[in-house]
Structure formats: structure tokens, C-alpha cells
């Protein structure tokens, strides 16, 4: 029997994106089903961050189509896209230095019920509770990454866009991140994970998209990952 097609949480077709005069994305097509965990892999400068930013409406100009739960967002302002229920964790983490840890946590707008409460988040991230009165950028790199993740879990949004969340972290913290991502998947979050390589999410991801020079070069489902390692290493220049 055919598996029922998962509901399309995110569908991108023919996406072009520009910063000023530079044309960065040249017709990206990808879909992410509800509850799926999908990675965007690629070399530095391939256009993975730009893809996430395009979804949030944070690039200079974009064209094509991006639907969130079937709602077209290509002409929407950023804050309205976010209110459709997207949690965005930027590559540079974006912890606000003028805000305390708790203010950082409470910043994203709650868009619907079902998000995690502050108490739940503190239970999940005890370090953040201890340091909740500190200014955001006083935290260590790992704690900042935890904070950047934690604050998008409160909003009730079910689609998470995570940009290189393991970059520059100590191996134990990378492991903790891996467990966290697993828990989030179990809780039913839909996750788009930008990574440099496929190892971090190999056990968790349903599918891997490879981006090269602003287009999707390949898509590798979970069960083909083992047989595609060489091909992937070639794409990623490992």
C-alpha cells in the first residue's frame, strides 16, 4: 500500500533570491511535509542560509512561490510570515545583547496555543534558568545556541528553520543538540536543518537536499543515505 502523502508544510517552487544586484538563488524547488526533518546540505556559499532567509522574507528581493501550510507568502512582510508559525534560528544565533536571557526567551511573539511554557523551557534548559537575569551575550557559545533554540519553541509555531546550529560548538554540546533535535521531532515539529555535512543529522533526517550554487543539485532520502555517501562527499567537497 502506498503511504499517504504527508501534508505539505512548506513548499518552495522556482525560488529566485537577490541581494542588491547579486542573484543568489536560481530556481529552488523543495517541499517539506508536516513532521518531517529535512536537511539542506551544501558547501559554504552554496545558498543554504539565503534559502532560509528567503522563506522569512529577509532577502532583498525574491520571486517564485513559497507556501506555508498552503498559504502563499512570497509577497508577505516578514512579521506576517513569522505569524504563520515559523521559528527561525539564524546562523549567527542573533542573541540580543541589550536583553536579558529571559527577555530573549520571551521576545518571539506567541502565535498560537501549544507552544512550550517558560517553565517547561527552563526544565529543558536548566542553564538558562540559572542565568536568566544575565545579558544575552554574556552566555557561552553553547548556552547562546541553546537560548537561540529555546526561544523559538514558545511561540506555538510548528515549523523550525535552523541554520548551522552545531557550528563552532564543543562535541558534548553537539551531542546535546542532537538529542534536542530528536526530542523536537518526536514532539511533532517540522524541521528544516541547514548543515555543512550530513553526519549530525544522519540518524534523524528523513531526507537531505543538496544545494549547489543556488539550485537544488540532489535529494537523498534516508534509506539511500548509506549508498550515497561517496556522491554526497563529492558534492560537499569533503
Amino acid at each position, binding site marked *: 500500500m502506498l503511504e499517504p502523502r504527508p501534508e505539505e508544510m512548506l513548499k518552495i517552487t522556482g525560488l529566485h533570491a537577490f541581494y542588491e544586484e547579486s542573484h543568489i538563488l536560481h530556481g529552488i524547488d523543495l517541499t517539506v511535509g508536516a513532521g518531517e526533518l529535512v536537511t539542506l546540505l551544501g558547501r559554504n556559499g552554496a545558498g543554504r542560509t539565503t534559502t532560509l532567509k528567503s522563506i522569512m522574507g529577509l532577502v532583498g528581493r525574491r520571486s517564485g512561490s513559497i507556501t506555508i501550510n498552503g498559504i502563499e507568502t512570497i509577497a508577505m512582510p516578514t*512579521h506576517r510570515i513569522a505569524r504563520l508559525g515559523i521559528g527561525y534560528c*539564524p546562523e549567527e544565533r542573533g542573541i*540580543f545583547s541589550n536583553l536579558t536571557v529571559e527577555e530573549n526567551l520571551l521576545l518571539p511573539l506567541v502565535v498560537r496555543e501549544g507552544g512550550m511554557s517558560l517553565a517547561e523551557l527552563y526544565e529543558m534548559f536548566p542553564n538558562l534558568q540559572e542565568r536568566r537575569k544575565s545579558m544575552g551575550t554574556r552566555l557561552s557559545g553553547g548556552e547562546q545556541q541553546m537560548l537561540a533554540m529555546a526561544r523559538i519553541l514558545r511561540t506555538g509555531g510548528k515549523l523550525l528553520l535552523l541554520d548551522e546550529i552545531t557550528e563552532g560548538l564543543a562535541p558534548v554540546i553537539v551531542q546535546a543538540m542532537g538529542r534536542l533535535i530528536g526530542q523536537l521531532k518526536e514532539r511533532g515539529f517540522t524541521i528544516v536543518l541547514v548543515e555543512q555535512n550530513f553526519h549530525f543529522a544522519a540518524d534523524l533526517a528523513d531526507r537531505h537536499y543538496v544545494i549547489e550554487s543556488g539550485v537544488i543539485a540532489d535529494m537523498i532520502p534516508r534509506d539511500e543515505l548509506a549508498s550515497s555517501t561517496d556522491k554526497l562527499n563529492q558534492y560537499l567537497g569533503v
Partner: protein
Amino acid sequence: MELSFHTVMSQVMLGLNNGVFYAILSLGLAVIFGLLNIVNFVHGALYMLGAYVALLGYTMLGPLLGKPDFHLNYWAALVVAPLVVGLLGIGIERTMLRRLRKFDHLYGLLLTFGLALIIQGVFTNYFNVSGDAYDAKPEVLEGAVNLGFMLFPKYRLWVIVISLVVCFSTWFVIERTKLGSYLRAGTENPELVKAFGINVPLMITLTYGYGAALAAFAGVLAAPIYSVSPVMGSEMIITVFAVVVIGGMGSIMGAIITGLLLGMVEGFTKVVYAPASSTVIFLIMVLVLLIKPTGLFGKES
């Protein structure tokens, strides 16, 4: 020269009275600069407009409405002028500043400078440059109070108190409330704040409106003390810009404290060496620029 405690204190109190105007105005500039990255050169003109709303509301509004007995009183002016000028600010932001956001911040500065010249020019054309007296000071604020060490005009004391209340409330809202956390975050990384679902463009518009309203509020407070004239804003704003340079653009509390202190320094200088009192702030500005170019409270960037 003998420096009696009384002479010094009375000049320092009068200086504080000037200082609260510097504080409110530089606070507004700091809030606007924080979120819009624009040096709001039209601030002085908005201050002047606030005073004129009070003056014209008192003298001309009644006749204009066909009710010669109607006068907008002082208390009403304290509410109406900030509202009117705040709305004007919102209009300026929506129709003009917003379009400049994607260009260099210099254009915002040039635009507001041009607006200041236009507003001042129009008012110079219709009103007396040497100023008109505002006669609607409320009776309860006439006379003087005994502060123990001196008799101080009641009205000036009121101005000091209410200005401090407004300044520190603004500080409180920005630094200690949820709404303020949006503003602080927007100052730091507006794009990400948008990505968290917050309507940043609206926040920017309202912030500019609030800054304009603050300037108008100061204008109404000033009306019974100084004469209301088309150039009152441009005279005031030169000193306020010096205050802002000394304090550094970055900090709300910095703007308030610097404004108050410099007012008092000015007052004190009046006792010690009166001819220097009008230049002492600029002297301090030069010194600060030489020693700490980002200003006393400014952050290195």
C-alpha cells in the same frame, strides 16, 4: 568674588530647569536614533510647534471656531500639543522617512534638516521672530515655593518635576518592560525582530511619533517661561545636539543624565564666570570628543 551657597544653588536650580529641557529633547533624539538610525534634525522645529499649539490654542482657536470665549488651557495643551505633533511625526515617518530607510542614513538627516528649515521658515513668515508671550500659565503655578535654601518659582519647579517624571517613565518603559524589550531588540537587529513576528515598521512609526510628542511636550512646558518664537527650536536644538554628542547616542539614561548635568554645569558657570555660560557646553563637547569620541555613555562600535 564671593560664592554664596544661595547664589550657587539658585543658579544650579535654574540650570536644572534648562537641563530638563535638554534631557527630554536629547532623550527623544536618542530613542529615534536608536530605532531609525536618523539624527532627527527636525526635533527643534517639533518642539517649537508644541509651543505654538499651546499659544495658538489659547489665542486663536476660539475665534477660528467662531467661539471667541474658548481658550485651550495650559493643561489641555499639555495633552493636545503632543498628540497633534505626534500625529504629524507619524505622518512624516510614514510618507517620507520610511522611503529613505533603504538608503544611507545621511539622507534622513538631510530630509529632517530640510523639514526643519521649511517649518521654521513658514512660521517666521507668519509670526513674530522676537516672540510672543504665552499668558495661560495656570494660577496654581504662579508664585514661588520656599525650598529651604531659596525661594524658587513654582512653575519652574513643576517643569522640573514633571519632566523628570516623563524622562524616567520613558526610561522605565524602555529598559524594564516587555514593550521596551521589543524596542531594544529592534535597535539591535530589526530584521530578526521581524522574523519573530513583531511588526517592526509599525513600531518604528510609533517610536518616531513618541519622540515628536516628547518634543512638543517640552515645547508646551517652555511656553510660559521663554517667549514663543519661530526660532526657539533652532536655538535650543544646537545645545541639545552638543548634549547628545557629549552623552553619546547609544543610551537612554545617558541622554537624561547628560542633559540634567550639563544644564546644571551651565547654571554653575553663570555664577563663576557668566560670559562662559553659553559656551561651556560646547567646550565640554570638544573635550569629550578629543578624549572619548563616542561620548560619555556611547558604546564603542
